[in-house]
């Protein structure tokens, strides 16, 4: 978290992450060029550059799209999620190299503007084999460009989280366009089945991951709770909680994170105000509930970020009775403490209650 905007808020994890990305890309490109020189020495430099950057960009996109559901399924993948935007920007840069050199090689040798040529040199929209696949790649690149230039938090706040998130969900459309760009392009003349197999395996992997993770989340969302008196709902036994950690409950369409901190219980809205991270999967650090994604913090008793930060989330009333925890799913206003004299919990957990 920072008060002002910096281009990149460098820390040790970000540096390691970026060095790994850089090393991977360099290794991949050198390997590709070396193998091409060995097995296809008659290829020109432009062709090798176009193919190496395209395959690397597609590979990175698959990795990027895998991170989200993998982190949902297994918390060990969370560190990959924290700086996923660095991967995204890198992938766009590599894809842009591919796009620029493709346009240079295929559309700049005539007397027509290259971008006009891109859309007018092939108008076989009725043919599958002859479909103008380059246009698909162009539109995918535009989407990735818009995502890359708005990847900074500055745009998240200025576009509003809803608009920003909607824009960044266009990555799924970009993926579809890229799959068809490959299938209607290079696959039409590189007929070796290994290429189709690789594209298919990538698609199967991503589809399966997302459906499995999504189905798991739907099951959590559909979990039923018995109504109780005075609007409170029983959610869990009191002895199931770990100090400084939370459990997440989905009641009435929204998720609530119930934290145990200093032997007291606090309930806040599960969604971080920054980028929608799951607050319930974080932990209490320096007395603040800390989002696992980017470290945004909130005070447990009122859901406010510690000064000078201004983010706020809703709190919920929670009570403990006969060793059972009850939650009121009606949220308090954002930043407002819960309706209890102690400012966050109604009944403190004691050894007797546990």
């Amino acid at each position: 978290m920072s008060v002002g905007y910096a281009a990149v808020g460098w820390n040790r994890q970000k540096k390691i992450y970026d060095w790994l990305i850089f090393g991977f890309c360099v290794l991949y490109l050198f390997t590709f060029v070396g193998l091409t020189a060995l097995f296809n020495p008659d290829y020109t430099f432009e062709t090798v550059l176009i193919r190496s950057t395209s395959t690397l960009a597609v590979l990175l996109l698959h990795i990027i799209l895998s991170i989200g559901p993998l982190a949902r399924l297994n918390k060990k993948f969370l560190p990959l999620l924290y700086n996923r935007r660095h991967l995204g920007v890198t992938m766009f840069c590599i894809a842009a190299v591919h796009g620029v050199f493709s346009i240079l090689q295929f559309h700049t040798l005539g007397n027509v503007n290259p971008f006009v040529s891109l859309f007018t040199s092939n108008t076989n929209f009725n043919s599958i084999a002859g479909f103008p696949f380059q246009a698909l790649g162009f539109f995918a690149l535009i989407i990735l460009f818009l995502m890359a230039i708005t990847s900074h938090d500055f745009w998240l706040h200025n576009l509003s989280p809803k608009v920003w998130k909607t824009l960044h969900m266009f990555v799924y459309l970009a993926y579809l366009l890229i799959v068809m760009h490959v299938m209607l392009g290079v696959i039409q003349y590189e007929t070796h089945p290994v290429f189709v197999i690789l594209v298919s395996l990538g698609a199967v992997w991503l589809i399966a991951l997302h459906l499995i993770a999504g189905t798991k989340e739907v099951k959590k969302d559909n979990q039923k709770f018995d109504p109780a008196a005075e609007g409170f709902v029983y959610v869990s036994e009191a002895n199931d909680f770990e100090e400084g950690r939370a459990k997440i409950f989905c009641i009435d369409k929204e998720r609530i994170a119930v934290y145990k901190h200093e032997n007291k219980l606090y309930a806040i809205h599960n969604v971080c105000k920054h980028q929608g991270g799951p607050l319930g999967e974080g932990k209490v650090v320096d007395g603040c509930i800390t989002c696992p994604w980017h470290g945004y913090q909130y005070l447990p008793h009122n859901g406010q970020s510690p000064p000078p930060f201004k983010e706020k989330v809703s709190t919920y009333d929670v009570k403990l009775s006969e060793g059972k925890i009850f939650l009121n799913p009606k949220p308090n206003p954002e930043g407002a403490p819960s309706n209890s004299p102690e400012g966050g919990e109604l009944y403190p957990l004691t050894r007797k209650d546990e």
Partner: protein
Amino acid sequence: MTRSLRKRHLQIWALWAVLIPVGIIAAWMAVPKKVTQELLQSEVLRTNDDTIAFVDKGDYSINILLDWSKANKIPLLRKLYDEKDKPEPTPNVMDSLKNEFSLEFINKELNVSSLLLYQVTDSTTNDVDKQELLGRIGGRGSRYFSLELPPNLVLGHDHEFVYEERFYKAKFILYDIIKKQAIDSVIFKTPL
């Protein structure tokens, strides 16, 4: 992530689970079939012709064809040459045979698109400009060239042997117009 976002993600990927496989399969099925190495025309097409001379060079083959149904004058020709005092064929017989010969060029593997086929009519020089251009060899397949001039129908007359031998004799050149050089030549000398 909010509940609505989770729902939207799942909807999108459920849709992609249908669209992407359909797209991949449709594109894969639309891949053009590889051009086969087989001849484009079958030999059945030339039912009236017979091969009187041939050569197979691996990458290509040349057959000299004679339409026997029209060339039944050959026995007459032979009969004429039974007369020792007439060693050369009479002009009218030669004229009648003029259009019955043809050359079949079967391009199997030659990947040069700039080939011309010449028939040597002036054996005193190697200059192709002085020879008879039959036509151009394109991609794989069969080409037929009508041999308009009598293909040096030399009716050999060897008096030293019991049998008089008539034979077909001709020379053809394959010429690359880009590299400006002859890449191969074929000489036929075969009894009729």
